[in-house]
């Protein structure tokens, strides 16, 4: 058993009278892809923030490995239109990155040669990949993605997560992500955590998708998720017959 990159023990986070996270025990090992799913307001983003160190827990503790390098891809980055910013300059924030490393990071993220472009002129998909490139520049042990595909269409999101899997196998970094694209994300994960203030259930994507709590939380969507998941992994061609053609690619 390796030492986990991050470990949370009985973590609770409260905002006033509102308990967002309640006794969460969680750890992420080097090299694994973990996805956190849960309804809106279930504390997913709070959990990620606690990992980054952006939140002081009300109880419990968060332990980070010594010298842990975190690459963070935020949910949304709104660049004020008054702020001029080239991709190259953005990648050097806050620490200067050499041209060679900048080029390499953009290649890895799947958007080569964008250095001189203005951030504001990028498409949604390019923008998210530039954010990914920036996160990869620190050579992270742990890559954290908070709803990183929120603005992308489904093929765009699927391509983005394929890229994440490739990055993981190239660099060996662990990945912790939150997403609404349940089926796409679950099929790319080693482990899924179903969160609703506390951890409802966790395990392999299949175990979670079949868990009654998960079905209760996601209702109708569950059928589709399960169907497509099986489509990817079991080639069960009957289960997804009610899906739209674009889902069943």
């Amino acid at each position: 058993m390796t030492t986990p990159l991050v470990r949370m023990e009985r973590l609770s986070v409260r905002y006033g009278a509102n308990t967002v996270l309640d006794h969460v025990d969680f750890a992420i090992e080097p090299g694994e892809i973990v996805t956190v799913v849960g309804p809106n307001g279930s504390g997913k983003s709070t959990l990620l923030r606690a990992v980054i160190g952006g939140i002081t827990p009300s109880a419990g503790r968060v332990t980070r490995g010594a010298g842990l390098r975190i690459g963070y891809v935020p949910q949304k980055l709104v660049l004020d239109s008054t702020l001029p910013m080239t991709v190259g300059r953005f990648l050097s924030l806050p620490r200067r990155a050499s041209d060679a490393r900048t080029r390499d990071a953009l290649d890895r993220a799947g958007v080569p040669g964008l250095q001189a472009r203005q951030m504001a002129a990028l498409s949604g998909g390019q923008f998210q990949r530039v954010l990914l490139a920036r996160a990869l520049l620190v050579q992270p042990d742990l890559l954290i993605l908070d709803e990183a595909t929120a603005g992308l269409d489904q093929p765009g999101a699927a391509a983005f997560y394929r890229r994440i899997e490739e990055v993981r196998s190239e660099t060996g970094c662990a990945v912790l992500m939150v997403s609404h694209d349940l089926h796409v994300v679950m099929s790319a994960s080693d482990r899924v955590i179903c969160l609703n203030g506390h951890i409802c259930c966790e395990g392999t994507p299949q175990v979670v998708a079949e868990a009654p709590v998960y079905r209760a939380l996601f209702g109708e969507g569950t059928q589709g998720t399960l169907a497509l998941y099986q489509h990817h992994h079991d080639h069960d061609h009957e289960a997804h017959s009610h899906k739209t053609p674009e889902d069943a690619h």
Partner: protein
Amino acid sequence: MTRAALAGVGTALAAAPLGCFVVWRRMAYFGDATAHAAILGVALSLALSLPVFVGAVIIALVMAAAVTLLTGRGYAMDTLLGVMAHSALAFGLVAVSFLSGVRIDLMAYLFGDILSVSRIDLAVIWGGALVVVALVAWRWSALLTATLNPDLARASGIAPQREQLVLTVALAVVVAVAIKVVGVLLITAMLIIPAATARPFARTPETMAIIATILAMIAAWGGLQASYQFDTPTGPTIVCVVAAMFAVSSLFDGVRRAG
């Protein structure tokens, strides 16, 4: 005349780079609140026989701290800042009227009185300007990252609250420095107009800050000359020059976008 020119250029140097952050972070109202509160600081200084600079910095900091504390307590930011800015100004004006013992030229504090700048004032202006420029240059990358996204900053080991504090302190110093030159009512103009004017010509944050600083310095000098020529109040004349620059820049930007 030389002193006045140096005072104007020094204020421009302090205000313009910081003004870029005020624009990027949409803090224009915050700047207004801090600046308007300074008139209360002026009254306090005169009552206690302190240097005006000291009172203005202290009250500007108190104002900034009050706004930061009250943020997120039920009022929208612009409402809160509107309340604070105008109340501070009103209380400041009333406080000044209580100081019956001293004869005060209120207009000098509201709109500046650059021609009465003393050697000591000049030293304070340039000292303050250098402190602000050094502070902003030192924290530049961290400030930019925190401006983009607080969580992005945290993941890079930057505390966004600390960077906010750096900006607040710098803003308080700029306000105190600029009172003599443009007065409390027009300080925000020297912060945001050069930055907004520089925007169409810049491709990176750094070039925007440099262009804004150069434009602000030219405006300070040009405004001073014009005020001599036309016998107009200097502070407002400087702001008129910078506003004219903004108009030209916007026109240029509009033509370029259309073409």
